[in-house]
């Protein structure tokens, strides 16, 4: 017997017989082909869905980050890092991270997925999410998702879009809400996210037009039949219900939050800048909006 033959361990035919009898006794038969095809389809479908949702997350992230407050950090007395830390959309970043992992996991579990190294699969998952996400952003999907979640998602203002919470700090000079009533002297009533009414006193000639810095503002142009858009104010809280506004800028991401019942002005008490009881009572004329979201009131004929 050759040396090579010695190394082999021949199995007696009894092994074959035992194997065959086990197969017959237990009525084992090959699993049908559809069983494996289904498993593969499920892997691909879950991976594709994760990619699509991840791309949606990227489009919202892009929408939020292109409308962040880094450009006005000096006006709100914050550093670059502070603004980023306080307004970074952690929810979307964490969701994106999880979805990239799901994509990676599913690619790895495809028939040939194991052949690709970790870094290349991760890079491909991230790049695919970003490229598709940016395409969706260009079609306005990020804004639409933010709008839908703004109207419906629980804890939206804390986790999904922390910019809203960041702007709800009147004691730190930041306030967000929807204008409700305008008076002739540029004062107006603003309803914040908790339905609290504030009397806003714009500092004389300091209502700056920040819209030039905001290329995404055209949609803020309003006609008088539309509800007023939510705005952000930078200024100072002077009493429990009064706030002087030095800067007024429109709210873009998160404005749909104020469409929720209980978080914007109550339509029954007049949520637009038209005639209202107070104006009539004070012999003031209703105000109109001028330009891209800048608020001006018509001077009273008596002035």
């Amino acid at each position, binding site marked *: 017997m050759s040396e090579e033959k010695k*190394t082999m361990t021949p199995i007696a035919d009894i*092994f074959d017989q035992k194997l065959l009898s086990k197969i017959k006794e237990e009525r*084992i038969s090959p*699993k049908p082909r559809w069983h494996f095809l289904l498993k593969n389809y499920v892997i691909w479908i879950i991976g594709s869905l994760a990619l699509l949702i991840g791309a949606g997350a990227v489009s919202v992230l892009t929408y939020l980050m292109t409308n962040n407050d880094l450009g006005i950090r000096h006006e709100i007395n914050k550093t670059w890092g502070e603004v980023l830390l306080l307004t970074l959309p952690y929810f979307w970043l964490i969701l994106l991270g999880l979805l990239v992992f799901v994509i990676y996991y599913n690619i790895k579990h495809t028939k040939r997925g194991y052949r690709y190294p970790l870094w290349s699969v991760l890079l491909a998952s991230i790049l695919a999410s970003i490229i598709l996400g940016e395409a969706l952003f260009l079609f306005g999907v990020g804004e639409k998702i933010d709008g839908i979640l703004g109207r419906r998602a629980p804890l939206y203002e804390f986790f999904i879009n922390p910019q809203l919470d960041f702007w709800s700090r009147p004691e730190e000079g930041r306030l967000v809400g929807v204008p409700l009533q305008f008076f002739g002297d540029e004062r107006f009533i603003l309803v914040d996210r908790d339905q609290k009414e504030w009397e806003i006193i714009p500092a004389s000639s300091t209502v700056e037009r920040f819209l030039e810095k905001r290329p995404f503002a055209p949609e803020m142009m309003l006609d008088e039949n539309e509800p007023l858009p939510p705005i952000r104010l930078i200024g100072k809280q002077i009493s429990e219900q009064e706030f002087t506004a030095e800067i007024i800028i429109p709210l873009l991401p998160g404005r749909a939050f104020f469409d929720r019942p209980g978080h914007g002005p109550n339509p029954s008490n007049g949520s637009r800048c038209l005639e209202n009881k107070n104006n009539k009572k004070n012999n003031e004329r209703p105000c109109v909006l001028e330009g891209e979201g800048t608020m001006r009131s018509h001077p009273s004929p008596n002035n």
Partner: protein
Amino acid sequence: MTHYNNPDSLNDAELVKIILTDQENFLYLVNRYKDKLLNYIRRLTNASLEEAEDTLQEVFIKVYLNLNDFNPDLKFSSWIYRITHNQVISRHRKIKARPEGYMVDIEDQAARNLAADIDIVAATDLTILKQKITTILNQIAPKYREILVLKFLEEKNYQEISDILKKPAGTVASQLNKAKQEFKRELVKQKFILNI
């Protein structure tokens, strides 16, 4: 059962097709692989012949059950080795190192190839060399043992090892290097002579 006069003339993929139409032909496949796989199982685990045969039977049952999952783009031998490897892991995971007595003998050429790759002196007596290789394989970490076994004792190439272990070829190459270094360290520890 449809008998084939010369089943050896069929390649594995053709044989699988035939089995799927007439499952009685499964024995042709069993006979083609049972000795190789039994040795592979014993090299990985040092299991006794009876234990290894039990594992092997489970392997063939799994192969039989999953025949429709075989992808002809892959070598059938890689696929069946992968199933065997996974079965060995799940069955023998908790079993620690066993007495060397169960270890299957190493083929001469495999021993020479491993020795050449690790730089063991060529003049070493072949019987002693094989004993030392067996001893060291039994002592190094399982993840290193399995890759050395596949490369040198089962004589699989990088792509086949990649398909068996389901790891990228680059990972296989780096793991193989680490395994060889670990093997060398163990050789030095055992005061076995190297060419260095």
